[in-house]
């Protein structure tokens, strides 16, 4: 089981690198959906087909993070008619480099933290996720990318939480539910923003400029 947990954690890290490296928003959203799926499977892999709690956690995570939120994001993308990120503050190559660097730093730092969990990839990947999420939040301009960045950050925190599953399972479940709330909250803000932007540059208004 340890190996599959390792692989899942690596895949989570890789999806983050994908988000850093691509400009097309639909690919970003797909990556974040995959990440949600891997994240959902992770508690099962970590505990080795554990209790009902674990399955509830996994199911909840997958539904929220791999299905609901990506669908919401895709809907928002359609509404706003944005398909690509504009040229970010740091280029895609630079972001990618920063991502790998973040991973390296996370591994270096994690070695010095007190070990709390048997799986030694968990903490570094969690740290890296938080850092990469911040990178995305800071460097990307489009609201949807920012939500994606926020989700990565959030997933990092979730990974930290997983180190505590055996001790405080209930807390984690609450956390998942909190995600739904926060997700909806963020989406509300985003869609509001996009609507405002959208109205001001809508083609309907542009037609009013012509001479009649």
């Amino acid at each position, binding site marked *: 089981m340890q*190996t599959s947990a*390792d*692989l899942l954690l*690596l895949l989570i*890290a*890789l999806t983050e*690198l994908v988000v850093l*490296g691509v400009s097309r928003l639909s690919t970003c959203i797909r990556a974040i959906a995959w990440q949600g799926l891997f994240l959902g499977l992770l508690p099962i892999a970590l505990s080795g087909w554990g209790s009902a709690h674990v399955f509830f956690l996994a199911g909840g995570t997958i539904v929220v993070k791999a299905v609901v939120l990506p669908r919401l994001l895709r809907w928002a993308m359609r509404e706003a008619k944005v398909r690509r990120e504009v040229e970010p503050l740091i280029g*895609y*190559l630079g972001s*990618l*480099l920063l*991502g*790998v660097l973040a*991973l*390296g730093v996370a*591994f270096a730092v994690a*070695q010095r933290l007190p070990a709390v969990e048997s799986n*030694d*990839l968990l903490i*570094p990947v969690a740290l890296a996720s938080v850092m990469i999420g911040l990178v995305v939040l800071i460097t990307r301009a489009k609201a949807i990318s920012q939500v994606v960045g926020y989700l990565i950050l959030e997933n990092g925190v979730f990974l930290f939480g997983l180190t505590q599953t055996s001790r405080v399972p209930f807390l984690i479940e609450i956390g998942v539910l909190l995600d739904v709330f926060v997700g909806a909250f963020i989406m509300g803000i985003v869609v509001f923003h996009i609507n405002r932007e959208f109205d001001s540059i809508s083609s309907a208004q542009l037609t009013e400029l012509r001479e009649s």
Partner: protein
Amino acid sequence: MNTPLLSLALVLVMAPLLPGLAFRTRALLTGRRGAPAWQLYADLWKLARRGAVYSTTTTWIFRFAPVAVFATTVAAALLVPLDGRNAVLRFGGDAVAFASVLALGRFALVLGALDTGSSFEGMGASRDVTFASIVEFGLLLTFSALAVATGELSLTGMFGAPLAEHAGALTAPLTLLALGLFALMLAECARIPVDDPATHLELTMVHEVMVLDHGGPDLAFILYANALKFALFSTLVFGLVVPRARWSAPASAAGLAAGLLASAVAVGVVESLTARLRMAKVPLYVFGSAALGGVALILLLR
């Protein structure tokens, strides 16, 4: 029985099958019939019997380039542990020699392209060196990760018995390295999504446009060398996925043949599924492939 030499012979003979098989797979998957898989053998035979036309602009460098590409690729084949255990020639740090000798071939080919004075070939040369320099970064990153993983400095160690010993404990990094190396292979061997060997528009070419002026036996040398390079990289990727150090000699040879064919089919599948990248996106793709190796190296250095 000298299995490294026999495997070398097998690879040298099978190499031209690979591009054909990749094309065939792609054709079948996209609903066409396509040329037979052994088309390249026929092409090579046809070209070898032809004469040559040399541009009045060119010098000896142009004539020397195909020879150099061929010779260096064959020399690179000596260093790869083709039978899964031993290379024909091994020494510490031969992984650098592998990359460098291929670089020599590329240097000659690029100079040959510039020798024609054609703007198209200059364009191809410029693109090729651009992408190749990043591929070299990724390739040596991969080799470094393998060196750290196995404690060996030669390709024979990195892909041979020491790898097989460690493979069980290193599933995650080796998976990353195999993926990264496969992606780098697509770039190095000029396949989709970096370059389309089947395109007919010069402006979109990378590798093909550099050999526009070569014909006859010269072109045969280049085509064969490309196929051989494809086979060598396939062997490396396959060696990461299926370490064959403990297999018996016949099984290993059969495994090699199967691995080469599987790699060609895999490339064909990838080519039918993905689109060609824009030129400006290629460096990102290659760096992304290298990043897989980078993550693996971080995991190993932990």
